Structures are given as C-alpha cells and as structure tokens.
C-alpha cells in the first residue's frame, strides 16, 4: 500500500489492521492446539460459572462428619456426594476448586487488561514523543523491570490488607514494563513511516495520530500475546494466595486451599492436589491458545 492511498483513505490503514488481526485469528484457530485449548477452557469456564450455583453446594459449608472424604474410587469411604472429596472441615472440594477458578480467572483477566493498558499508554507516549520523555519513562521501566515483580507484590500486599481490587492493582502495576517496552519500540518504528508523517503534515493533532492511527494498528497484535499473561497472572494470584497475601479465607482460592491442604498432605493428599490439577488444566488450556496466537502472529509478521 502506498503512502498516497493511506492519506487519501485513512480508513485503509484501519482496514489493514483489522485484516491482520483476523488473519492471526484464523491462522491460530486452524491449529489443533488452539482448538484443544479453547474447548478445555470453555468447559472449565462453564463449570466454574454454573456448577456452584446449579448443584446448590455451598463451598464454605462445613460438615465435620464428612471431613476428609477421599475422591471417587479412592480409599474406603468415598461418596458420590463429593466427587473430589472434602477438605479438613468437610467442605466440598469440587465446589471449592470451581469457585477458586472463578476468582483466578477474574483476577487474571482484569490484571492483564490493566497492565496492557498502562504499558501501552506509557510505551505509546515514550515512543511517540521520544527525547527526554522517552528517556525518563524508559529508565523508570528499566528500574521496575529489575525488581522481581513478586517481591514488589508481596512487599505491598504484605504490609497492607489484600483485597481483590488491591491485588489486581498491585499485579497490574507490577507487570506493565514489558508492554511499555514492546509498545515503545513498535511505535518508534511506526512513527517514521510516511502515513504518520503525512498525517502530521496535514495538521493532525498528536492525540489524533496516536489514538486513531497508531493504536488500532499496534494494539491488537500485542493483545494476542497478552493471552499468555492471563495465565501468568493467574499463577501469581495463586502464589499470593498461597503466601496468605491473596483473597482472604473463607473465600476459597487456589492459593489458600493449597496452603491449607499442605498441612494435611499425609492423611488427605487430595486437598492440596485437586485444586492444583484444576489450575494446571486451566493454565495449560490458556497457554495453548496463547502459544498458537503467538505463533500465528510471528508467522504473519515474519511472512508479511
């Protein structure tokens, strides 16, 4: 596409951006990995959304007489009432795991969106204006990249009371630097191109160029790769929960169930194991989708 076309029809750039996104989608969707991931994830998501309500089992209801019931077909006193057994207080493991999955996905997705937004904004500004703004923002980014994110997160959450918004905020603010870097380098390459210079000559404001021309072109490919970060953030959420810095009990989360179950590992291995298997399955499905999207993106950008 020549520069004259783009100037004459600004919609042309957007159409191109759309077509790249849809090509990435289609290429990824064609792969077996993506489909397996999608199916597994959809099943787990529906189970998490529906099971605790439909079954009417309260994940926080204790039943001391049925405590430490083993999962189906394991041990002696298993029962159909608790397919994955019960924990040390007789709470149903399946319901607990699925409610944990809800929080995990909720926090994982929101956090990723937040860090994508913050990172993209900072990278956009730094890459577009360059010079001293760029230097300041990028040194800040470097500094934050060199502190392990988890230290940052436990430092903040460890000294304040963790709530869902504070967890999302902390993880999101700890994770943006990578996006800022990628965004900045893409924008720097992009802003030298003729369509951007042309728009400047025509008197478009910086805001207009950034939001209408650059973002629609640059953001979607980044958002595809962000799928992988949803899984990463879900792991972080569970790590925080495990350290006692996540969503607080009695709300079940993967982290706090596993931390509890660890104490009963020898008599009731399933308490720590079952939520972990749910978490692994969900993460694997997300990672399979993310990896196929990443590959599709690389193929399209490498080949185009």
């Amino acid at each position: 596409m020549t520069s004259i076309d783009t100037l004459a029809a600004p919609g042309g750039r957007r159409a191109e951006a759309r077509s790249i996104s849809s090509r990435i989608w289609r290429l990824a969707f064609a792969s077996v990995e993506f489909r397996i991931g999608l199916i597994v994830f959809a099943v787990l998501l529906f189970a998490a959304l529906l099971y605790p309500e439909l079954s009417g089992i309260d994940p926080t209801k204790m039943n001391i007489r049925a405590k430490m019931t083993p999962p189906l077909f394991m041990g002696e006193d298993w029962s159909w009432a608790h397919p994955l057994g019960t924990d040390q207080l007789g709470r149903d493991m399946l319901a607990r795991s699925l409610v944990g999955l809800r929080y995990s996905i909720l926090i994982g997705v929101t956090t990723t969106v937040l860090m994508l937004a913050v990172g993209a904004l900072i990278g956009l500004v730094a890459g577009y204006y360059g010079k001293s703004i760029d230097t300041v923002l990028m040194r800040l980014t470097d500094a934050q990249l060199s502190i392990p994110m988890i230290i940052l997160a436990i430092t903040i959450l460890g000294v304040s009371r963790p709530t869902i918004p504070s967890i999302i905020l902390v993880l999101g603010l700890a994770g943006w630097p990578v996006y800022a870097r990628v965004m900045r380098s893409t924008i720097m390459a992009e802003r030298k191109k003729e369509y951007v210079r042309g728009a400047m000559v025509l008197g478009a404001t910086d805001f207009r160029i950034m939001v209408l021309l650059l973002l629609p072109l640059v953001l979607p490919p980044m958002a595809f790769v962000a799928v992988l970060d949803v899984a990463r953030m879900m792991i972080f959420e569970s790590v925080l929960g495990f350290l006692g810095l996540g969503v607080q009990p009695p709300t079940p989360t993967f982290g706090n169930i596993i931390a509890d179950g660890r104490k009963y590992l020898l008599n009731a291995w399933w308490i720590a194991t079952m939520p972990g298997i749910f978490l692994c399955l969900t993460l694997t499905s997300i990672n399979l989708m993310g990896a196929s999207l990443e590959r599709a993106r690389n193929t399209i950008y490498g080949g185009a």
Partner: protein
Amino acid sequence: MFILRFLLRRLAQGALIIFLVSALIFTLLRVVPGDPVRLMAGGMAPEALIEEIATEMGLRDPIPVQFTRYMSGVVQGDLGQSFVRPANGAAVGGASFDDSTRSARAEVWDLIAETAPKTIQLACLAMVFALMIAIPIGVWGGLHPGGWPDRIALYCSSVFVSLPNFWLGIILALLLSVKLKLLPAIGYGGFAWTILPALVLAIEIAPFIIRSLTVSVAQIMGQNFIDIAGVRGLSRNQIIFRHGAKNAAVPLLNLLGVQFSMLLGGVLVVEFIFDYPGLGLLTINAVMQRDFPLIQGIAIVTAAAFVLINIVVDLLSTLIDPRLEY
C-alpha cells in the same frame, strides 16, 4: 577501547537504575500502610512509646530526608541494620524487640552475604537442569518446524509453564521425598537438599528456553549459510552444532538476562516451600516482619545483580557474534 567505553556507559546506566530501584522501594515501603514499629514494639505498646521509638529511629522524618540519609550510607557500602534480627543469627519475633540492643542487631549486608551463596547454588543448579530439559526438546523442535517434534515442544512448554511452582514443589516433595524417600526436601543439610528445589525451578524456566530455542534454531536452519555448509561437505551434526548452536546461543543468552528477575521470583516461592535458607526465604521473612532496611538491601542487591548480569550477557553476546553492537 570499545569494551571500556561500553562498560563505562552501561555501569553509569546501571547506577541510575539501582538508584531508581532504591527510591521506588524506599518510598513504597513508607507510603503503604503498616507500621514496622508497631510490629517491633508489640501490639500492646502504648501509642506514645511507638511514636517515641519511631522518632528516635528517624521514621517520622520526611521521606526525602530519610532517603538521603539512607543513600549516603549505601554509597559508603553500609546497607544499615535489620529492624528485627539480632546479630547472633536467630530471628526474633516482634514482641521481644528491645531498643537498647540496637547495636547488636544484624547488619543487612551480613544477612545477605550469608544467604546469597545458597541461592546462587540453587539458581545455577536449576539453570543446569533447565538446559538439560530444554535443549533436546527445543533444538529438536527447531530442526523440524511444523512437524511433530515442533508440536511436542509446544505442548511441553505449554504444560511446564502451567505448573504453578508452589504446587509442583508440594507434589514432588510428597512423591519423591515422603513416598519414595529418594531426596531430602525440607531445610538444608548439604548439596542433596538443593536438588529438589532446583528441579522445580528448572521446570519453571525450561519452557521459555524451549520457546526461544525452537524459534531461533528454526530461523537459523532456514538460512543460506546452512545450506552452503551442506554443499561444503560438512555432516549434518557438524552443521547443527558448529553453525546452528553458536547462532542460537545469542538469543538464549539474552533471554537468560531478561528472565533473571523471573528466576528470582521463582526462587522466592521455592525457597519458602522447601524452607531453603537462601535469599528468597530471607526476603519473605523480611516482608512479613516489615524489616524495611533488609527489604531495601535485598532490592538494591538484586537490582545490582540484574544490571551486572545483563552487562555480562551483552558482552558475551558480542564475543559470540561480533556483528552485534551495544
């Protein structure tokens, strides 16, 4: 000459980064709620006493004043003293805090120097395991792009990256240590205690190496000079190891530099699970006890390590591939 200028520039940048990290952590600790003095003096201590101790320790001064005081110490190599740990090693709980023994409290630098070697040992072993897992899978996948070894590489890395380290640690400890009695798991009593934590860490790092290797090997094997090497009569193995591996090493090295902070995050959790007495466990305890000087010290030391490792990585990359310029 080139190397000297490079080093000077990078060290200056590194110093700036370390300064920013210190400022960030320092401010954060003091802005976020949670008073260390209350924890030190115990919950029952009267408000007046807490204020008195805090003022005496300089914790009520404006943040820039505190920060200047702290940094002037850091520049002279003094990271300060721990709020809660006595010099004899054992950690004390908040209730037994006694301000008259301030001089007897542990130097932050000593605490870090004691624990860092254990963590370095753990990290190195983990890196060895990770390479042992990742190189065969990654290179094999890269040699057959689009084929089933490539697919295996994708599945392997997707599964490995989906195993939460704390959960994997618990499960492996249960299986290998409790049930099969193969390896010791909790605490530290010699090299054998490093193996299990290192294995968990390795599985956490391996997927990133696999992904990087598959991509770079596939890319290199598709280039002209590889085909020409075949024409020159080199065997396939020679081609792969002489040309392919050397060129795939650069992205791999860069990855290790970038992944360093992720590795440290993993170390933190793994050391906590296995009660392994390294820097990670020290950090977690420092955070739980709101031991400001210790948290700051650890942040500064890790940032310095991050900067140095990245400089070394870039130097090595230029040695391997002289075309690169930094």
